[in-house]
Each structure stands twice: as C-alpha cells, then as structure tokens.
C-alpha cells in the first residue's frame, strides 16, 4: 500500500477518478485555498494530517497532567480557578482536534489506542515535570507561547477542519500565555523566594520550549513536503528564531533572564541567534527516556482503564434507551 500511496503522490498513473481528484487537489493547493473532508486528497496528505492532528490532540490531553499537578495546590483561589479553566480548555482543544482528525477517517478510539500503545507520539515538553508553582507560569508563558508561534500559521493550513480548529485553539492559547506571564510577573515582583522560583522555572523550561519547534531544518526531512502541501508555512528554525526574539524582549519586563548568553540579533541575516541546544537530550526524551514519559503514559492508561466500566455502562444504557424508543 505504501508504494501505491507514494506513486499516487507523484502523479503517476492512477484511476481516472484519482487523476481528476489529484488535478483538483493540486489546483486548491496552488490557489492556497482549502481542502474539505469530502474532497479527494492524496493518501500521503491524509496520513500526514491524521498523524499531525492526532499528535497535537494527544499533546493537549497529556499536557493536562503537568498543570493538573498544581490544581489542588494553587496558592490562591483565584489562581486555582484560572488554572482549572485552563486545563479544562486543554481538554476542549483535545476534543476539537480529535474531531478534526476524525474527519480524515480515523475514529477517536483508534487514535486514542495509538496513544496508549505508544504508537503515536505527543509533544516531548510534557515529559518534563512541573515542580513548583512558578512552573505554571513558565509553562503558560514559554510552552504555550511556543505553541502559539507554531500554531498561528496553522490557522491557514490547507485542510479546512484543522485550520478552523486552530483559530479557536490559538485564541485560548493566547489567553493562557498571558496568564502564565502574569503568574511570573507576580512572582518576579514578590518575595526573594518567589523571584528565585520564577527564575528557576524559566531556566528549566527555556531549552525544552525551544525544542518544541522540532529538529533543526537540516534534520527535519518531512517539513518540505508539509510546506508544499500548505500545511506548514515556516520552517522549524524560522519559527524558533521568531520565538527567541519575542521572549528575549518579554523576559526584560519580568526583570529575569533567559539561561542562554548567546542570544543576539544578527543584523546581516535579520534573524535571532541563540546557543546550541542539546539535541541529544531531545532525542532521549523522544525515545521515552525523559523524566516523566513513563509516568504520563501510566496516568493516561490508568484513567482509560478505570473508566472502561463507565463507558460500557453509557453504551449499554444508550442501547437500552434506543430499544425502548423503538418499541414505543
């Protein structure tokens, strides 16, 4: 099947229907317009999107865990309310994204199964622990901040349901980023211990946040195809540079620092530069050896397994109700 897929993508001989579909698809992409669920699309496009959207959905769901870790300990009731609303938003993002992925033909249960069996990945950032209250700030500011830089261009992704889901996700993410920054600002203007807590959180989340954009461009072979399909609009490095430029300005407002003394604006290239990241660590975490990989997966499996009897009950009840309705 894989060869067939590749062949089709390369415009080789297919059925007449496929040829017409491909021509339509190519025109939509050339016009920078939108592909909708019922439209013909190359198998590679469908697979790439299913993988990307479901990984994004998984990231939202796993990403609830580090923050949920502080809901019960939030140090003020207002912060507790905001954090709860935020984690709830993430569950909502997971839902829209699973729904967007389902329009490509794979049901949520199957996508979920891919997550639980470790076949599908989620963003590596969530394999780092949330250790202090300041981490709620750093996650909001840096992790959600990086996600926004990544996701704003996705609002224009060629696949309609994905692009539209991202519009709503981005609006909420931008609120999340501001609340994260506000947490850090409050800490930075607080006691010496609070200020140190904030700096420590930034120190720990800075590099992993930068790695959220993915490997350097020369190490990211799939990016080119995604760019040709108008799914991806900017390269990993372009987005990362843009993000560094943003946060190095914002950190000044906090009166704190980024743990990288090589950040500078290169006048010649017009780009932000930063110190080399430890890509070895990135690949280690990706392979499952991050501090929390095992813990995150265990929690997700546990929730899923503990909930099985509830889901079965809901189905059984629904079946009984529809039977009753038929009899009546």
């Amino acid at each position, binding site marked *: 099947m894989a060869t067939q897929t590749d062949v089709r993508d390369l415009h080789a001989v297919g059925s007449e229907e496929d040829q017409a579909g491909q021509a339509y698809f190519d025109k939509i992409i050339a016009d920078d317009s939108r592909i909708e669920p019922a439209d013909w699309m190359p198998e590679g496009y469908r697979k790439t999107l299913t993988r990307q959207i479901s990984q994004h959905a998984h990231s939202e769901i796993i990403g609830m*865990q580090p923050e949920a870790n502080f809901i019960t*300990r939030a*140090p003020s009731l*207002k912060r507790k309310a905001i954090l*709860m609303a935020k984690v709830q938003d993430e569950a909502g993002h997971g839902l829209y994204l699973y729904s967007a992925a389902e329009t490509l033909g794979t049901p949520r249960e199957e996508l979920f199964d891919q997550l639980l069996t470790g076949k599908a990945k989620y963003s590596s950032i969530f394999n780092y622990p949330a250790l202090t209250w300041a981490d709620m700030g750093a996650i909001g500011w840096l992790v959600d901040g990086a996600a926004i830089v990544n996701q704003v261009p996705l609002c224009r992704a060629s696949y309609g349901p994905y692009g539209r889901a991202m519009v709503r996700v981005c609006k909420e993410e931008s609120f999340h980023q501001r609340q994260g920054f506000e947490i850090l600002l409050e800490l930075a203007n607080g006691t010496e211990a*609070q200020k140190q807590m904030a700096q420590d959180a930034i120190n720990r989340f800075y590099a992993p946040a930068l790695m959220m954009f993915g490997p350097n461009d020369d190490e990211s072979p799939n990016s080119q195809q995604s760019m040709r399909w108008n799914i991806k609009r900017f390269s990993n490095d372009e987005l990362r540079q843009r993000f560094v430029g943003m946060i190095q300005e914002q950190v000044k407002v906090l009166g704190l620092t980024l743990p990288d003394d090589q950040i500078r604006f290169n006048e010649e290239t017009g780009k932000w530069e930063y110190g080399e990241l430890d890509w070895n660590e990135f690949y280690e975490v990706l392979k499952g050896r991050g501090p929390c990989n095992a813990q995150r997966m265990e929690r997700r499996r546990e*929730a899923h397994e*503990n909930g099985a009897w509830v889901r*079965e009950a809901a189905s059984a*009840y629904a079946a009984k109700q529809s039977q009753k309705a038929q009899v009546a």
Partner: protein
Amino acid sequence: MSGESATRITPGNALRPEDIAEQVAAGTKVSEDVAEYALRLGDDALILAQRLSWWISRAPEIEEDIALGNVALDLLGHARSFLTYAGSAWGKSEDDLAYWRQESEFRSCFLVEQPNGDFGKTIARQLVFSIYQHELYSRLVDSADETLAAIAAKSLKEVDYHRDHAIQWTLRLGDGTEESHRRMQEGLNSVWPYVHELFVDDELIERLPGVAVRPSELRAPFDALLAQVLGEATLEVPDVQPAMTGNRGTRHSEHLGYLLAEMQVVAREHPGATW
C-alpha cells in the same frame, strides 16, 4: 445605603467574587452569625471543588474531564463569593480563610470531605449534594440578606446543571451494566451515612430567621426527587444508618486534614506572599 442592593447583578454582569470584595472594601460588614452561615455554604463548596478538581485529567472520557472540571469551577466560584462575604466580619480575605484557617475552623460537612472513590462514588456524592444544594439555593434566593440571595441566584443556575449531570449519570450507571449498577449502588451506600448531617437545624439557624434556610425543610423535597431518580435508575434508596457527624461544628472526618494539607501547602510555604 439602605434599599440599595448590596451587590450588582444584571444580565451579562453575573456576580463575581471581586464584586463582593469591592462591596466589602466599601464598608459592607456582616454580623458574626451571617458570616458563620456563609462559611458553612462556602466551605462545602470549596471542599467539594477541591475534591472534584482531582478528576481533571483522570476522568473516564475527555468530556467528563471537562464536565467535572466545570462543576468544580462553579463550586469554587460559589466558595469564593461566600468566603469573601464571610471574611468581612473579621477583616479577612477569601484566601486568608481558605489557606490560613486550621482544620477545626472549617465548617464543611462530612459528605463533601469524603474521598472521590471510583466514578460511581463521585457521582453518588454529586447526586446527593447537588439535589440538596439545589433545594437550598432555590430558597436562599429569598433570603433577607441581599448578598446571600444574590450569590444563590447566580449559583442556582449552575447547580441546576450539576444536578442534571449527576442525575443523567445515575441513570446511565444504575441502568447500564451489572457492574455499573453494583458500583453505583455501592457508591450511594458509602456516602449515605453522611447525608443526615445536611438536614440538621441548629442554634445558628434559629438565630437567623429569614436569612438562613432551615435545613430540615429541605429533607422532604430531597427525599422525593432522590427516590424518583433512584427508582428510574433501578437503584435502591440505601438502607444505611446515619453516622455521628460534626453537626457543622469543629469536628470533621479524618479526610479533611489531608485535603487541607495539600490545598494549603504552597501558600503556607510563603507567608505574606501574594500570587
């Protein structure tokens, strides 16, 4: 300021804890009795919110992560309003009350302190509490205390949803599979000893005629709706004896200390800090 509502509540401008804080800052001060009553209402909501929030990221379906999170968030909102109002009697903020009181100073009932157990037990606790709270708030809207009435009016709409959520799940679990039926019944049996406490009148209630809702009045409508729901769900009203509880006093279940230790730990590591 007599005759003027103590709180602003207009459509699109729902009552927020911050609004009450403003009123308090402007000089609203309640009597100790009203404050004590508001503490009971606030603490029940706060402790249950704390319990329910644990489910976020652990629920049987993502939809339930959202739903239980929503219920918790609503309850936390009620708690913040009631505690802010109560605190005006002693010059304390919602956070002073939530984070710096000792266990014996809380006024929560045993029911909300009960551990989550499985989803069935959580739903059983939700069913009992939301029916009770719905009966309570639908009377509190007529309280002579305008602020309590306003908080109840805003919260009642939310509790209406909580009650519906709990009823729908009780039906599904009760009349779902054999296992879900068993678990739901066990959940009900396990929370039942703590139901009685919700309906006990005491001296504080006697001292607040027209302001506080008399808990004993809520028992009959509570029993009626509960029996109807359980009947439809093929479940039994538990035949379990009431436990000796705290009677809204200074005694609590063994569970509260652990809950507070977790809830208060970060705040207490940083006395005097703001967040």
